Structures are given as structure tokens and as C-alpha cells.
């Protein structure tokens, strides 16, 4: 706890981003209680209303309260980021660790597959996989997770290779430890730090991917609110109500910035050689 | 003008009151404290001490190569009546490589990997002399030949990774000596090399320095190198000079316990019964310097006087920073090795 406090004191950027993300999570949980309106309640009388006392951020083309939709969309965005990263980690990290640890032709083959998958432009592959799996937020994020997995596999593999050659692993092998024990007790804890940083940075990518897919109509489906989908609607009515595009865009931008800043802070906090800088 | 300069007795380089601070403001620590010494034309001076004693920092300070925004250098470094520390960046640039050159420990990392050896010599020549490409090339080939690199014309167009470690260090020396500097600072030039190559490189440096009358400033932790190559020995400890003496005198009868300790930890060829003595403890960091004599915490001879700061005492033929130098008789090497 004191270590956490001293970290926060040293690293203001990290503290702010962590605070922002914590507040965002809280808002997502409390959205049904604090949002002034239902996110799906339409009102023909109040279509594309400008911001006012009743509707702080105005209303959309169906007369729905933008602020309420914005708040209700937090949950979907965070869920999407976490899901995509979790899928990517679940597929990529074990493959990377095992590949790096086993070595030989197996590693060679896996590396080729990773190289190949990394040649696919990310969103294109995600759109393709989403199309195959079926359109929807969860499928979209599984697709994004699949796209993330080779990056994580490569990182995990590289970390494993570095640490595999460290002396103490050899020592453990001499004592007859099983490969699984070596991986669990020796490789995991040391290799995991850059992976944690990468996971945090990928949360931002996941968020942006969710927004992109929802914007394209491949992610969150109406009437469920999502920042990306809100932008798509705002775009259709941009000539009438241009101010509608700012709030969801800023929400995406700040959340992505917070994830990235947190990742950078973690990188510095976890890497002893970075502290001097 | 000082009278000394006119009658030619002024040394090539006179360093006095050199201080180097790392860091800025209150957090600054003094890494080099009041260092002063002279180097005469063609003289070969060895600076010894453990790592962290400030040898390399002294060398980099002479070259003006310490990072400007994180270090603060004060004092005097006189060459040709000019204080190098007061020179602007452009003027210092003309001194580097031309008047004072430096070679480093790791010849692989010290050369640019994506340019040929020859180009790295030619560009140095062209930076200091008004010469064309063709002439620079000829002189670069000559420089390669001078450092004993076989087939110099062919090596000219090879890249550093194509050369062996010893050849790379020869190329490095060729770069450093191409412009015929008057002082060459060699910072651990042989540490990264095989033992057999080490001797070759030392011999090469000696030969070249005596042929061209280039003064040598040897920075090393290897007293054997100093014994065989240098005429004068400067012992540094914790950022200070603790002894400055003729090599022969210092080896036989050191007057500072630290020099004596370094000499006694030298392995000898003659078999001995006792284990190799070593100096207990380690060099204090600049942030936590002892109040008095900096070596006192590790010194077997420390007395009550050692709690006070000790000046560098001039004994005429040598200088020593030890409060008890008059009472102590310290062991050195029995005989001058390799002499």
C-alpha cells in the first residue's frame, strides 16, 4: 500500500490515468443510477436538440439523451477492451511461452505462423474474422483478440528465450525440475513484466478497435449505445448538428490516452533500468 | 605571457584545479576533485586506480566530451597558453582529434559499423586539413600501414565487423593518430583484447609515440602496462590524485598506501607462498566521501591525522597525498618488471 502511494507520488501521469480509469469504471457500474435518462428512450419532440439544462450534451437524431448514452456506453467499451486483450492473451501468451521454451522445429514453425499473422493488416483481419464469426460486439472483440494474439505470442516468446538462457534455469533443470515447474516458477515471473506493459497498451488498441468496428456497424448493435456507433450516427447528421461528434470522440481519446499513459508508467515502474531516466 | 613558455619549458599540457561535478544544483556530486598534473612533449604518463576513481572522467574532461548539460567542469587545462575549458565548441572541436586524440576500450563499439574503416580515417583528416578526397585516401592508407595493418589499401574499404578485435584497435589507433596529435589519451586500450594481442598493441603505441613524439596518457587499471610503457605514474583514488611520481621510483618505493596496495596486488611470475594481497573494501561513491583522507577507511596505516583532509604534498621529485608519508616505508615491486 505504501509502495503504491509512493509510486503515485513519483508518477503523476500514472496516477492521473489510473484515477481516470477507476472513475470510468465506477461510472460504468453506476450508469443506470446516475444517467439522467434511459439510453434508449426516444423522444420525437426533442430530436437533435442542442445542449441545455435538461440535456447537458443535447440529444441525438432519435431524441435520445447523449449524456445518458455516453455513460451507458462506458461499460461496453471497457468490456470490449478487456475481452479483446483477454482473448489475445489467452491465445498468444501460452503459445509464445511454450514455443520459446520448447525451441527446435516447433518454435521455428510457430515463429513462421506468427510472422505470417503479423503481415495481416490488423483491422482488415478483424473485419474478416468478425464477418465469419457473425456481427456483434463479442464476436468483434474475439476477432480483435485473435489479431492481438501474434503480437503477444512474439513478445512472450522473446521473453522466454531471454530468461531461458539465464543461469538459474539451467540450475533448476540440473535439480531435475520438470519443464512445467521451470516455466511456472522461474520463467513466468520474470518474463511477465514486459507482457503486462504490452497488455495495458493493447487495452487502448482494443478500445480503438471496438470504436472502429462499432462505427462500421460490425460491433455493438443498436439500440445499445457505444461511442463508435454514436459517432457513426453523429456523422450522418453532421451538417445539422456538428457538435454531436465531439463528446464520444473525446471519450474515446481520453480513455485511450489513459490506457497508454498507464502502460508507459508501468513500463517505467517495472523496469529497473528505466528508473534512472 | 609566462616566462616559462618563452624558454620552452612549459609542458604540453598543464592541468590544474580540475573539478568535475555530475548533476545540477543541490544534487550535484563532485566526481573529480582538484586534479592537477602536467604532461610534457613525448612523455608517457600512466593514470592508474580502480574503476570509479575518476580516470576515465579525467580523460573525457580533457577531451571536452563530458555531456554538457549534466556535468560541470571547472579549473584549467592549459595547452599552448590557452585554457581548453574556456574554448568555445568550435575551437574545442578543432583541438579534438587534431591536438588531443583519444582511443577507447571497446574497439568494436567505438567504430561506426556502417562506414568503412578507410572512410572513418579520411573523414577525420578532411575535418582537420584542407585536403581533397584523393589525398585523404592516400593518407588514410598510409595511416593504416603505420599501425601495422596488412594490405592497408584493401582494409581501407572493409567494415569494422570484418576485422578482428586487434585489427580494429589498430584501426582505431590509425584514426586517432592520423592527424598527428600531440597528445593521445588511451583509455584502457587493451582491456577488451586477448592477452597476446594486448602486448602487440602496447608495443605499437610505444613505437608510434616515440617515433612521432606524441605524448601518451595511459588510463588503465593494469600496473603492469604502466610499468612497461610509461615514464610517470599518476595514482588516482576517489576522484583525487594521491601520488604523482616517476614510474621507477614509484614501483620500487611507493609513498602512498594506495599505490603500494595496487603494486602488491600485481601477480608476479615468481612463485610465492602467500596469497595475492588485495585492498579490502571498495571505492566510495562521490555522494558519500569520507571527511578526511578518502582512502583512510581502507588503509592499513591510518592514524589520527587521517581524519583531516590531506593536501597533495610536493616532495620535489614527487607529490603524494598522505599525512603519514614521512613515517611510512611501503613495499612496492621488488624489481622493475619487464624493464
Amino acid at each position: 500500500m505504501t509502495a503504491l502511494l509512493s509510486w503515485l507520488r513519483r508518477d503523476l501521469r500514472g496516477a492521473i490515468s489510473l484515477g481516470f480509469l477507476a472513475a470510468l469504471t465506477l461510472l460504468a457500474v453506476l450508469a443506470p443510477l446516475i444517467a439522467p435518462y434511459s439510453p434508449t428512450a426516444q423522444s420525437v419532440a426533442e430530436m437533435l436538440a442542442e445542449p441545455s439544462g435538461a440535456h447537458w450534451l443535447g440529444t441525438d437524431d432519435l431524441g435520445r439523451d447523449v449524456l445518458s448514452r455516453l455513460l451507458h456506453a462506458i461499460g461496453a467499451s471497457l468490456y470490449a477492451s478487456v475481452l479483446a486483450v483477454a482473448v489475445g492473451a489467452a491465445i498468444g501468451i501460452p503459445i509464445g511461452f511454450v514455443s520459446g521454451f520448447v525451441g527446435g522445429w516447433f518454435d521455428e514453425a510457430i515463429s513462421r505462423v506468427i510472422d505470417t499473422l503479423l503481415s495481416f493488416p490488423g483491422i482488415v483481419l478483424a473485419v474478416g474474422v468478425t464477418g465469419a464469426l457473425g456481427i456483434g460486439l463479442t464476436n468483434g472483440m474475439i476477432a480483435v483478440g485473435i489479431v492481438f494474439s501474434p503480437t503477444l505470442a512474439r513478445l512472450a516468446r522473446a521473453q522466454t528465450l531471454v530468461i531461458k538462457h539465464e543461469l538459474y534455469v539451467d540450475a533448476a533443470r540440473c535439480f531435475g525440475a520438470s519443464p512445467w515447474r521451470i516455466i511456472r516458477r522461474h520463467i513466468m515471473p520474470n518474463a511477465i513484466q514486459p507482457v503486462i506493459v504490452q497488455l495495458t497498451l493493447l487495452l487502448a488498441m482494443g478500445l480503438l478497435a471496438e470504436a472502429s468496428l462499432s462505427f462500421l456497424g460490425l460491433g455493438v448493435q443498436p439500440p445499445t449505445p457505444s461511442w463508435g456507433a454514436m459517432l457513426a450516427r453523429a456523422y450522418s447528421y453532421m451538417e445539422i448538428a456538428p457538435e454531436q461528434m465531439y463528446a464520444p470522440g473525446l471519450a474515446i481519446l481520453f480513455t485511450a490516452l489513459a490506457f497508454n499513459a498507464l502502460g508507459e508508467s508501468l513500463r517505467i515502474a517495472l523496469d529497473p533500468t528505466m528508473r534512472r531516466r | 605571457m609566462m616566462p616559462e613558455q618563452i624558454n620552452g619549458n612549459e609542458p604540453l599540457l598543464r592541468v590544474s584545479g580540475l573539478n568535475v561535478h555530475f548533476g545540477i544544483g543541490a544534487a550535484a556530486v563532485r566526481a573529480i576533485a582538484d586534479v592537477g598534473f602536467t604532461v610534457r612533449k613525448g612523455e608517457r604518463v600512466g593514470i592508474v586506480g580502480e574503476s570509479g576513481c575518476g580516470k576515465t572522467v579525467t580523460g573525457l574532461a580533457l577531451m571536452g566530451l563530458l555531456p554538457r548539460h549534466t556535468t560541470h567542469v571547472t579549473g584549467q587545462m592549459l595547452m599552448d597558453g590557452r585554457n581548453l575549458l574556456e574554448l568555445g565548441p568550435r575551437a574545442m572541436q578543432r583541438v579534438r582529434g587534431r591536438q588531443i586524440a583519444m582511443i577507447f576500450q571497446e574497439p568494436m563499439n567505438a567504430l561506426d559499423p556502417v562506414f568503412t574503416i578507410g572512410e572513418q580515417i579520411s573523414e577525420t583528416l578532411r575535418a582537420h586539413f584542407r585536403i581533397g578526397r584523393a589525398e585523404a585516401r592516400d593518407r588514410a592508407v598510409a595511416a593504416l600501414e603505420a599501425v601495422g595493418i596488412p594490405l592497408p589499401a584493401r582494409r581501407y574499404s572493409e567494415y569494422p565487423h570484418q576485422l578482428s578485435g586487434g585489427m580494429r584497435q589498430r584501426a582505431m589507433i590509425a584514426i586517432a593518430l592520423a592527424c598527428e596529435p600531440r597528445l593521445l589519451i588511451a583509455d584502457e586500450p587493451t582491456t577488451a583484447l586477448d592477452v597476446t594481442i594486448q602486448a602487440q598493441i602496447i608495443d605499437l603505441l610505444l613505437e608510434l609515440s616515440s617515433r612521432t613524439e606524441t605524448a601518451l596518457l595511459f588510463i588503465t587499471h593494469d600496473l603492469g602496462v604502466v610499468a612497461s610503457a610509461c615514464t610517470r605514474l599518476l595514482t588516482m583514488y576517489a576522484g583525487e590524485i594521491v601520488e604523482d611520481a616517476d614510474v621507477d621510483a614509484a614501483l620500487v618505493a611507493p609513498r602512498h598506501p594506495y599505490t603500494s596496495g595496487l603494486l602488491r596486488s600485481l601477480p608476479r611470475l615468481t612463485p610465492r607462498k602467500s596469497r595475492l594481497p588485495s585492498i579490502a573494501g571498495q571505492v566510495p561513491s562521490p555522494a558519500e566521501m569520507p571527511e578526511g583522507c578518502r582512502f583512510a577507511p581502507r588503509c592499513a596505516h591510518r592514524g589520527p591525522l587521517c581524519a583531516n583532509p590531506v593536501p597533495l604534498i610536493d616532495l620535489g621529485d614527487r607529490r603524494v597525498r598522505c599525512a603519514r608519508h614521512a613515517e611510512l616505508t611501503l613495499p612496492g615491486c621488488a624489481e622493475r618488471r619487464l624493464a
Partner: protein
Amino acid sequence: MMGKRVRLALRRAAQVIPVLILATLVVFLLLHLVPGDPAVTLAGENATEEHIAEIRHFYGFDQPLAVQYLHWLANAAQGDLSHSLISSESVRTSILQHFPATLLIVGLAMLLSIAVGVPLGILAATHQGGPIDTAVTSLASLGVALPNFWLAMILVGWFALQLNLLPATGAAALTEDPVSALRHAILPAVALSAGGIAEVVRQLRSALLEVLSSQFVRTLYAKGLPPRLILWKHVLRNVGVTLLTVLGILFNRLLGATVVVEAVFAIPGMGSLIVQAAIAKDFPVVQGVVFAMVLVVILTNLLIDVLYSMLDPRVSV
């Protein structure tokens, strides 16, 4: 010497073949990610049993997967990427129609990313820790987190709708009307390049810092070379290799990012093609687009690899 380099290039090309084959496998398996019977999915709702059976036979779903793959591969090798399920147009024709628009904005965005990113990266690295560095790196962080389609919307709002400087949507063929094509491509390219500039700045800055702190740079100073020569001749030459790698990554990223940006500008490019196909479950088109894009990326990377081996003398010949 040159002969060796050519042989090296050929060997690199040979190494690409397994990657290419793996890529086709991935593309092929994309369709088979579909849960359940692809024929049922393809036939759509309310399909009769006969219709499903017909589709199954037509697409060869009744054959073993390996046979299907080899069949698809043989066709793809001849440039036949099957037909759209919706319009029954040849997928190859659609791709050839849609690729130029995409390549135009991606190419323009690449140019912008380099033209802006390289100077900024150099500026940041040479002023490390100073206010310029802080400003540039902050800008780069912003560029990474900025949703490019949102930036695209803002650009449309400001420059097309309010100021009326550039067209808001659409595209024109470079071969038919170059001026109009470029005018249409500017805003999409700017929107795309935000992320590209950020990528170039970050990678170049860290590569430069690494080189600047390396020992050989200290030697260059010790030789008395002027700082400008050290930066522009030695440091940049050493970073050139990194820069090439960055260009490869950049091309890949921009090609992906263009999907969303094309949607904003209603550009009839590869992005629009694949999104419409994905929504309509037009799988041959999806497969074709993914395949065409990865093919272009792999070939670009090959080109970069060859250039790389020519630039860096350390690459073993």
C-alpha cells in the same frame, strides 16, 4: 559483390514463399471459422434443402478440407478468387477496381507520415529532455490514441463543410482526373497520417537516442567531427535501417487503418469493399480482400528486406 547481393535478395524471396503459403492457409480458413455449416450460412435464411446441397456442392464443401484448400490455392495462383455471392461479379475484378483508391490515400499518408514524422523525430531526439522533446512526444502520444475516423470526421466538418476547401466524400481516379483525385485524397490521407506520424516519431526518436548514446558517436566527437556531420552522416545512416523497418510496419498499419477512414469519406476502396462484404456475409469477397492486402504487405516487406540488406553492411552476404 553485387552478385552476392543479388543472390541474397533471391534467397530472401525464397524465404517469403512459406509465409505466403501460410497466409493463403489463414485466408482460406477464415471462412471455416464460421460456426456450423458454411453452406447453410451462405444459403441464407429460408433456403431449401436442395438449395443448400447445391451450394455445398458448388463450393466444394462436401469435399475434404485439404482438397478444398488445394482447389482454392490452385485457383488463387491463377488469379481466380471466385465470385461474389451477392453480385456474382469476379472478386478479382472488384479488387482491381477498388485497390487504386486505397493505395492512393495510403501512399499519400505514407508520404505525409515520413515528411512530418522524420523531422519531428530528429528534433525530439536532438533536444532530448527539453521542451521541444516534451512537445513532440506528447503530440505523438496524442496521435497514437486519436481514433482516426474521428479525426476524419472533424476534418470533414472543418475543412469540407465549414470552410468548403476540399470535397467531403468520394474519390476520383488518378488516371482520369489527377487533380480531383488528389483533392479527394488529401483529407483521408491527413486523417490516416496522424497515427503514422506518431509511429514514425516514436520509433525514430528511440532509435536515434540509442545511436546517439552509442560509443561510436563518442569516437566521432573525439575525432573532432562537427556535430552536424555526426548527425546527418553517421547517426542517420545508422538509423536508416530502423527507418526502413518502420516503413514496413507503417504500410501495414495504414493499410488496416484505411478501412475505417474510407467509410468516413465514402471512398470506394478496399476498406469499403470488405466492410460491405462482411456485413452481407459475402465470404469470397472478404477472403479475396484479405488475401490481396496481405499479399501486398508481404511483397512490400520483401522489398524492404532487400533494401535493408543493401543498406547495412553487417547483413551477412
